[in-house]
């Protein structure tokens, strides 16, 4: 296909094979261009972009403490992004990681409050199980609605996010509120035995290794098993999958169960690994950032930790410049969206070779 603009011709030539270097180049260029465009926004708010970005980089990656805090932010992003990616691969546009995370936090709090007397080797696995099942069940509801009633999953998952956040508010302000906490409503502190240990001297809790393990497991599941193959076929073409005799309904339920469960573990990590309580604002929108994290990693579970680390840094650095320059954290959300814009725009290079030439 050829587009003509005056004396210039732009040809879109379909690629036969996809060069490997693009998988690294596209995300890199997207992030750089997004930061450049973001600097225009910063200037318009009267902030010197170079100083602001340097401060952002320092708070995010400058020293070992900054790095550890960036990893703390990357943990929930990683889990939520893996939960999102696996459903996207099945062609199920689940934007519900935020709600699944909230439900996971709620379930984890319930499990630890209810069985607070048990020792750590019982209560932590039990909490994980409860969290996974609760988040998975919550995640399956939109798949059920989609297959049985034809309801668009983007909208049901989004609406359910609002419901989940309000459900957390209800419990934190209502039945589970710790009377000892005055200013910031939260639930009572978790018993020692229910807390996920952290690496000495940091706030990096061991959920990190659970997340990395899940990344490897998902990679294996997607590339080496029949289930993984079926998911990809469904994601490619649902009708073709049906003709091939694949049970789409069963696979979608399974994939949303796994995806919802993994995203819910992010909520458990925040409650049992980081805060040791369920506070009102458990997530600053990790579930939405996760969509960008997953897409930047091209839905590849083993690439997601790197992508999550980058966005954890952006978020962590955003808090840093918020304090120094009084730049609202909303800036970070805008930059995240810019990254997504440019990843999407540059994705055309995956499919097409673009040749620009003068017209004769």
């Amino acid at each position, binding site marked *: *296909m050829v587009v003509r603009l005056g004396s210039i011709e732009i040809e879109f030539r379909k690629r036969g094979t996809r060069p490997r270097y693009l998988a690294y180049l596209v995300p890199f260029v997207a992030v750089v261009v997004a930061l450049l465009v973001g600097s225009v926004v910063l200037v318009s708010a009267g902030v010197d972009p170079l100083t602001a970005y340097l401060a952002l980089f320092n708070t995010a990656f400058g020293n070992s403490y900054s790095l550890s805090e960036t990893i703390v932010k990357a943990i929930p992003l990683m889990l939520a992004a893996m939960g999102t990616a696996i459903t996207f691969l099945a062609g199920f546009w689940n934007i519900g990681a935020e709600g699944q995370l909230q439900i996971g936090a709620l379930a984890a709090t319930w499990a630890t409050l209810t069985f607070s007397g048990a020792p750590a080797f019982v209560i932590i696995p039990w909490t994980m199980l409860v969290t996974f099942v609760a988040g998975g069940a919550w995640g399956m509801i939109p798949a059920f609605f989609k297959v049985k009633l034809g309801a668009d999953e983007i909208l049901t998952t989004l609406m359910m996010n609002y419901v989940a956040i309000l459900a957390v508010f209800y419990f934190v302000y209502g039945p589970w509120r710790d009377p000892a906490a005055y200013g910031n409503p939260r639930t009572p502190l978790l018993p020692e035995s229910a807390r996920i240990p952290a690496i000495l001297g940091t706030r990096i809790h061991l959920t990190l290794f659970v997340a990395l393990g899940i990344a490897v497991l998902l990679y294996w599941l997607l590339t080496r098993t029949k289930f993984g193959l079926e998911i990809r076929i469904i994601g490619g073409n649902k009708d073709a999958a049906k003709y091939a005799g694949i049970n789409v309904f069963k696979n979608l339920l399974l994939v949303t169960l796994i995806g919802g469960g993994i995203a819910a573990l992010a909520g458990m990590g925040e409650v049992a690994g980081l805060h040791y309580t369920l506070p009102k604002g458990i997530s600053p929108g990790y579930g939405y950032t996760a969509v960008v994290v997953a897409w930047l990693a091209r839905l590849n579970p083993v690439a997601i930790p790197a992508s999550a680390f980058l966005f954890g840094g952006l978020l962590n650095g955003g808090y840093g410049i918020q304090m120094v320059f009084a730049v609202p954290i909303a800036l970070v*959300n805008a930059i995240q969206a810019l990254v997504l814009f440019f990843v999407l725009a540059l994705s055309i290079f995956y499919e097409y070779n673009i040749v620009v030439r003068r017209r004769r």
Partner: protein
Amino acid sequence: MVQDIIVGFLSTSIAVGTSLLLGAIGEVFAERSGVMNLGVEGMMVMGALSGFLTLTLTKDPWVATVVATLVGGVMSLIHAVLSITLRANQILSGLAVTMFGLGASGFLGQRLLGVSAKGLPVVAIPLLSEIPYVGPILFQHDPITYISYVSVPIAWIVLFKTEFGLTVRAVGEDPGVADSLGINVYRTRYICVFVGGLLAGLAGAFLSVAYARMWVEGMTAGRGWIVIVITIFSMWNPVRAVVGAFLFGGVSTLSYVSQGLGIGIPAEVLLMMPYLFTIAVLLIVSQEAVRKRISAPTSMYKPYVRGER
């Protein structure tokens, strides 16, 4: 007394429904041409922000309304370039517009927080506004609400009674065939997405310049998503969108009113109502659509590439 409450409730429902109606008519155009735009929330919130910013600078609510409308249009062009020209995934491109709009407006609007301004006045339409009950409910509103009334028949006529409307529907159903008939698929889609952006921006102006007359971060509060649901509810017909918009306007109003009354239900549960209602409506409408074999424009989600099938 009871009549006053009911009239007041219905009148507020109309006001709340205005932004939904404008947004939905715009989305009907975009989707009819085959482009789903999930960026409504972002376009609307940027409209609200830029409208209020212009209002504080110029003190002229009309200039503010025009600026908001145009900013909504510009936001929609980002989606158009990504999804039409660059063939990016429509779902993610729209989501990115929403994320960008919410982020950028929160960032740029921080100095406007707590500022109030004189916005668009309420204009009672002579004669019509004096009809008992109907007058106060329908004809004592701000000008943008009247624009939303007028936009319904215009949109319907354009879509179903003009050659341009036929073009739009053809492009949405089968861009390949439309192209072979000499229709410019890309241009048609750009126009429809842009119209959607303009109307979403106008809806944003309604929120900040006509209704609340102030700026609150994230003041669209999910209205952009409800617009998408109303678009499905409308079966892509502007006239049916009216019913959806005022139904949702009524439910939102009801949830605020019942909160004020304090009838023993926790506030969080009442606040969930509009979202649960939205899910319920979506389920019913989706099933109805399946039964009546009505579906979204066939080419939706699919980028059109000339010469490839």
